[in-house]
């Protein structure tokens, strides 16, 4: 298994695809070439770091590729590599922001390889702010195998207590993975995961302050997030949980279907619940003999 960043390269012409793949390979990337939107879709998974695509494919165009990639791997970098000038391309939707390298610049394949190599290693096209130390944060999340730590029962009791204490619809403990939030305990609803760009918690983990959204409909960050409406999340309060090194691994949160304010006392109480979750995780890891 290669540690090199993985790139899918979509071009219909076999010779051109091979030349582009060679240039990308020379830049240290692990390349898989595909000839069409269909074959690209079949090859897509979350291990892909970057997609390089021509604009014209036999069964679709570059923006179809963007849609296919976003549906599987929303943060993956997509680079249009085309002879079309920007003004000749059709208008894309606002969610179809991509990188672009024109084939008309000198030594364009080498330039594409430079852009792709750097983007695959360091860039995200996620629709949310990403912590500066995201790699370390994700490593920290992976160190907490909550099932193995047998913490679920304790978290179920805590979230039940929270729902009752705050008189809210839902209380949960969520861990923030690379692409989605995983609800490891959830009182009042049956939520398993939520795409990261749809979560409020992806903002909560950025700050050590309690995140309070009194009314999602009035907050421009969340007013257009359909998933929150579907889950009946109208108000929210959340505190991030961190590991010993300070990496944010998730959040402890309250939601309700009605707009709601939180008093300072309630915010202090929520912080105490979050401290309890953090401590439970830490102690159970120590019991397991984890470093």
């Amino acid at each position, binding site marked *: 298994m290669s540690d090199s960043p993985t790139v899918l390269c979509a071009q219909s012409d076999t010779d051109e695809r091979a030349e582009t793949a060679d240039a990308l390979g020379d830049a240290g990337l692990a390349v898989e070439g595909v000839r069409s939107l269909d074959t690209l879709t079949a090859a897509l998974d979350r291990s892909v770091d970057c997609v390089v695509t021509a604009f014209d494919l036999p069964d679709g165009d570059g923006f179809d590729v963007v849609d296919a990639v976003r549906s599987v791997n929303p943060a993956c*970098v997509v680079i*249009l590599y085309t002879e079309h*000038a*920007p*003004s000749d*391309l059709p*208008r*894309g*939707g*606002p*969610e*179809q*922001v*991509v*990188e*672009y*390298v*024109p084939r008309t*610049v*000198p030594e364009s394949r080498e*330039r594409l390889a430079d*852009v792709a190599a*750097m*983007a695959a*290693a*360091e*860039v*995200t*096209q*996620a*629709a*949310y*702010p*990403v912590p500066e130390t995201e790699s370390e944060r994700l490593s920290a999340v992976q160190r907490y195998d909550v099932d193995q730590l047998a913490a679920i029962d304790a978290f179920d009791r805590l979230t039940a207590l929270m729902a009752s204490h705050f008189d809210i619809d839902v209380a949960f403990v969520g861990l923030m993975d690379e692409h989605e939030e995983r609800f490891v305990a959830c009182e009042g609803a049956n939520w398993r995961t939520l795409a990261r*760009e749809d979560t409020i918690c992806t*903002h909560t983990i*950025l700050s050590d302050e309690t995140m309070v959204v009194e009314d999602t409909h009035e*907050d*421009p*960050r969340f007013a*257009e*997030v359909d998933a929150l409406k579907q889950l009946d999340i109208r108000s929210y309060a959340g505190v991030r949980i961190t590991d010993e090194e300070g990496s944010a691994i998730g959040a402890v949160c309250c939601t309700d279907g009605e707009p709601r304010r939180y008093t300072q006392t309630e915010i202090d109480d929520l912080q105490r619940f979050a401290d309890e979750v953090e401590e439970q995780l830490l102690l159970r890891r120590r019991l397991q003999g984890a470093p």
Partner: protein
Amino acid sequence: MAQRRDDRYTFDGLPLNPVEPGTSLLVTGPVLSGAREMGLRLLCSSDADGGTVLVATDKDATTMLADFERHGGVLDRERVRVIDCAQESGDLPEDSVSTVNTPADLTGIGIEYSGQYESTYASGYTRVRTGIITLTPLLVYSDDVRAVYRFLNTITGRIGTADGLGICVLDPNAHEEQVVESVAQFFDGRVDVRADQGALDLRVAGLRDQPTNWTPVGT
């Protein structure tokens, strides 16, 4: 180490220390009384291999370039390029100016930006300063702020990996505080600007070795 220090971006005439390549800065303050001027001054480059790509969202390219020149920029079509999305454009015959019909077309702006960046780079100007002046129309015209988040990740990602410099201007009074705070997360540092009886002050947050208290800006 000495070589790396030489690569840093400098700001002539401003009370700022050089910043590392790949840095993106958010300039916040009243646009009409300081923040626009500060943004344009930060984009002026005296580097022989320095280029500038400007995303003009609230003034047309001609006005933006005139403002840039007034604040010290040297107009050279090979090294100064503009994406005009101010909806006011007249005839723009030069290759160094691209147009996008609306600030809502973030995909179009992103592609035109990359195209102009590549043209600048191909002309030998590899130390590219990128300016978005201002972010406000992009936020106002976007129904869902997440599209702007994706746009900012893409643009600051290119700036970071290409060892460029990014300067984005935002008037915090035009937006809800939560939006300003979330947008600031995409930048390495923030330059606050205020005007006091015509004189500008600045302060910097998020970067080391920069003035953190209000500091007068020379003309």
